């Protein structure tokens, strides 16, 4: 079910990227795609009724079975930070493009062809 939500988010982001002419909306599309993938990786390590993976003395064997996978959470933390860096660069480029052209419309901006 949640996998389906990831798919919906991914397609939304891709549609936003392809169909919109405003470059800020394109950037938002990239961000939505990024979060779809982050959500997907979190869901991979999820268990229903899981507990945080912290080992304490005197734990029973049954609790160890119910630990969620901690690795995807570490991956997503890294991925969020990377996404933030890319987003900062994208927004700063949008600002510079707006200074040069006075518009956010990609079709008015693009001159490079052929």
């Amino acid at each position, binding site marked *: 079910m949640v996998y389906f939500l990831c798919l919906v988010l991914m397609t939304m982001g891709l549609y936003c*990227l392809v169909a919109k002419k405003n*470059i800020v909306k*394109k950037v938002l599309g*990239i961000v939505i*795609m*990024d979060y779809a*993938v982050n959500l*997907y*990786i979190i869901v*991979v390590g999820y268990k229903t009724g899981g507990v945080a993976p912290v080992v304490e003395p005197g734990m029973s064997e049954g609790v160890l079975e119910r630990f969620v996978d901690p*690795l*995807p959470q570490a*991956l997503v933390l*890294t*991925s969020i930070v*990377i996404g933030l*860096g*890319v987003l900062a*660069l*994208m927004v700063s*480029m*949008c600002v*510079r*493009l707006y200074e*040069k*052209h006075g518009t956010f419309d990609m079709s008015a*901006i*693009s*001159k*490079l062809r*052929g």
Partner: protein
Amino acid sequence: MNLVPLFVAIPLGMAFLIPLLGRWWKTSGEVLATGGTALLGIMSIMSIGAPAVVHHMGGWAPPVGIAMVSDGLSVLLLIAINVVGFLAVLFSLKYMKAYTGLPKYYSLFMLMVAGMNGVVLSGDLFNLFVFLEIASIASYALVAFGTDADELEAGFKYLILGSVASVMILFAVGTVYAVTGSLNMADVAREISLRFGREMNPALLLAAAMFMMGFSLKAALVPFHAWLPDAHPSAPAPISAMLSGVVIKSLGVYAMCRVFFHVFGFSPDLPGSLIIANGMIAFSVLSIVVGGLLAIGQWDFKRLLAYSSIGQIGYVTLGLGVGARVLATGGMRSLAALAILGGLFHLINHAAFKSLLFLSSGAIQHATGTRDMKQLGGVREKMPITGATTNLAALSIAGVPPFSGFWSKLVILVATLQAGHYAVGGIAIAMAFVTLAYYVKVQREVIFGGIKSAVEKAREVPAVMYVPLVVLAVVCVGFGLLYPVVGYRILEPARDALLNGAEYIKLVLG
């Protein structure tokens, strides 16, 4: 003495120090970047012929810890990255004087080198993704470094498509983790070969497709090439040389090789591997045709070179793809070895002559102030050294014997025809003549011909700019004539590393 972590640590440290010291010490960027890249270049040349090294980061053994693996294939790419990087920095010393914010430029340059070295040394899928992002973000910023309208637009295009590629690669990494429960490449390869030996796993096939798409976007294979003809000409010349010379190879072609040859593996037992190999060949043929045909009509010198890059990367992946297909269909291993050798040989040759051509275009632009081929002509008489090196590079890339480009293309074509792909081989041969055609155009319009007005006042560039050109020209000729002496010791280990995926698993997991 273990040099492997230093390849990443030195440029990362430099990238941190340069802007920090730049406030008080104006030339910190020039000094530290030249010193650092020179050191890295010497270290990479020293690692030729060394046995394969596995370094466990933080003392954790794989599959739990992150391993850095330096085998033959990594060494080949390390040499290309660090030597070209050093020459590009040398060229920058004079060329970049026209720009502002130089400490930032050198800092980003070192970040890019650090990211690429990390990609080629990483033994862990997610770690590969992180280093790939480091190199990518640095290169996005460097493409737009001039902050003119064109440069910003090209940088933005590159950024958007590069981000899509990163999302695809991350998705694939997550899928591989979901299926195999591991991220270490050797461990994943072992899991795949043990658990999915005889059956098709749809999730793995999806991951392979996503990897293919992401790395093809980074390597600019057609139909994922839309950003390259804008991004490479817009960047400053040393950055163009780095982008076309090594970035698309280390982030695209190398990562594709590592993931497909070692992690997924090509063998008759794995039904999915034939699909991957066919995909590689199809994209390669498309790249060769589209890149070659679009290059003919260009009148902007750097844009012509950028389209030519697409075509030549197609030749590289054609060699590798034919080798992969022979392995996947269970053909003769010697034939696969020949095809892979051709692909790798063309990769290192392309790094040499395409960097040389982009640096030459920068030198010509520096001297004459234009890149428009209609306004150029007779460069040879006014700038003898630049003219001679450009001429050598053009002959080499067009495949004129006895230069290096001829031999690598010959090996690829022979292997393709021997593997029975007559149509593909025919197309590749025809497009080799097209390559010759547009480099003859470069020679006629830029190097020879009558002196046009733009070239009247041109003078030879200073020594710090033409030394890198001469070094790369010597490499172009040397690889062609001295292959048994030079190329043999670099290329054979890389070929063997790609051929024997099982050895890699043994090497990392012990």
